[in-house]
């Protein structure tokens, strides 16, 4: 199995190498990057390109590692025992399988995405060490060891909100998805909007990159926001000339709410545009 990019996802050569290394050596791949650079999308695209199913586990701040393995529904069992249900005899009926259990017992190899692992408690990655390393765990209630029939391809994404423990990092490969350079950005937009007119594309990219370079922005707009904005521009049929001022100076672009998501940034942009205009 080898991943060589997909028609809908533009991957840089180092990312392709990292994914192929993870496939060949069967280790988890940890992916970090700015929000909106396509970390979650990568796992979906790899699964689609290799033609294997995808299992997703989206981590919340209240997620415990045990929830990924299995959960023992004790309250149902108590209730059934009081009602005299026959299913009570076998504890296996009350084990709810988690994502990792499903991934390990699957008939074929698949892709497992653990999304935003840094959201959970700080000890969460440490609780998954054995599972990621040996791909096995022990179910205490049914006294069985669940081993992976085929090692799943594990993608782990992180937003860098917490530091991950060293023991966990040793067991993974790592890749950081950088914000794309202008040429790659053009290709990405080209992949998502194949029929886009060249002048609209150039004007939009220029406005976007100028916006990113504004000093003092709290949250810089990212690739996914650029794509949403272009989609809105196409839907509203806005001409390329509206994206810039008459002499190519900075203006507040139409539908800027798709790019700047908090009022401080929007206010900053308005002030800069106003100051720019006053100098003329």
């Amino acid at each position, binding site marked *: 199995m080898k991943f060589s990019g997909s028609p809908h996802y533009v991957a840089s050569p180092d990312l392709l190498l990292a994914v192929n290394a993870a496939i060949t050596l069967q280790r988890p791949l940890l992916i970090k990057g700015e929000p909106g650079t396509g970390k979650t999308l990568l796992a979906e695209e790899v699964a689609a390109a290799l033609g294997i199913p995808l299992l997703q586990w989206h981590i919340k701040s209240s997620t415990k590692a045990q929830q990924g393995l299995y959960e023992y529904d004790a309250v149902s069992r108590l209730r059934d025992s009081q009602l005299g249900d026959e299913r009570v005899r076998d504890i296996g009926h009350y084990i709810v399988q988690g994502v990792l259990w499903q991934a390990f017992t699957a008939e074929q190899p698949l892709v497992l995405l653990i999304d935003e692992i840094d959201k959970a408690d700080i000890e969460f990655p440490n609780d998954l060490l054995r599972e990621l390393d040996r791909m096995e765990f022990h179910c205490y209630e049914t006294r069985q060891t669940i081993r992976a029939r085929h090692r799943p391809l594990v993608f782990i994404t992180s937003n860098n909100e917490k530091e991950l423990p060293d023991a966990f990092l040793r067991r*993974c490969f790592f890749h950081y998805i950088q914000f794309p350079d202008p040429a790659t950005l053009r290709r990405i937009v080209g992949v998502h909007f194949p029929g886009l007119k060249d002048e609209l594309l150039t004007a939009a990219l220029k406005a976007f990159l100028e916006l990113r370079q504004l000093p003092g922005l709290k949250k810089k707009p990212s690739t996914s926001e650029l794509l949403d904005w272009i989609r809105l521009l196409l839907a509203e049929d806005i001409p390329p000339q509206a994206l810039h001022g008459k002499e190519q100076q900075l203006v507040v672009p139409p539908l800027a709410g798709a790019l700047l998501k908090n009022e401080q940034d929007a206010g900053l942009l308005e002030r800069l545009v106003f100051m720019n205009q006053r100098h003329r």
Partner: protein
Amino acid sequence: MLIDFFYALRAARLPVSVREYLTLLQALQSGLVGPANPDACSLDDFYYLARTTLVKDESLFDPFDRAFAAHFKGVQAVAGEGARAIPADWLRQELQRLLSDEQKANAPKLDWDELMRTLQQRLAEQTERHAGGSKWIGTGGTSPFGHGGHNPQGIRIGGPGGQRSAVKVWEQRLWRDYDDSAPLGPRHLKLALRRLRKFARQGSALELDLPDTIRATAANAGWLELRQVPERHNLVKVLLLLDVGGSMDEHVHQVEALFAAAKAEFKHLEIYYFHNCVYDFVWKHNQRRQRERTATLDLLHTYNRDYKLIFVGDATMSPYEILQPGGSVEYANAEAGAEWLQRLTRHYPRHAWINPQPLGLWPYQRSIELIQQLMGQRMYPLTLRGLEEAMRVLSK
């Protein structure tokens, strides 16, 4: 074996372990990068592979780039510079040199001239690129002609065009900004402050406590008995003293961010202001600081030793403001600032001073040194690492 490379990385203080190094060797052995894989045979690809397997944080990418550049300085890509016409004599000599006697015996039984004719014939017959075989001229195979294959006696013909760019990827220093001392955002601050956690359960019982429920039900001969427990929240109490005015004006944004993060994180947070150093008075509202003041002694009596005391200030002033009675720039204080600071630190055993000034400037300011001593060396810079250390000290 790349052992020197491994030790070079360790000398550059990168936390690479033996296990990761063995994984890199395993990756090379599996043919992911290297002569066996014609698509990934350049030093750039090796650089990417080494980075993926050995470096696990983007703040370490820049040191890795520098260590890599230093170690592999001068190593050019091995691939050929493009196909050239090979003179027949040279080929003959090469063949004679490369094949030893028994290999000549074992090799396809071809006479020398016949070999030359075969080569010319193959060059004519082969109309497209080929890989992995044993007859045609190509790459990755066992044929004696081609390149990138497993026939060590083969003649290298052509090769992938080497990386034409003059500057290598790792020399571009793309990762310089991702260091640890990057500017802090409010989110980073909140997460650093989150280390200061002491959870307790207080208040009305709202959460289902499953283990207790099971125990109570079992003790109740099987009749379901639900037990509930109050929600957890952070019980930590923090007393924050902020320096305002004067030299602190340039750090106002950072302190604002810290302030906002602290307010969001700690439920029991008390904030007071001072100027340069803490003397007899602190105040809550800066506009009304002349009229509404709180005596520092009142502070000591109101907030008990459980509170964690955090000073935020640049500690930049003349030394006499700390050491002399009457040294305050605003009024005549009877006792020296040092006295007050000592009183505070003795009363609150868990204290820390956070200084927005960069760490490099500290040795050049006498007042910073003095305050560091008074704080028992518990002064930390306003960076992510500094904050985390401060929080670690406070939570002990």
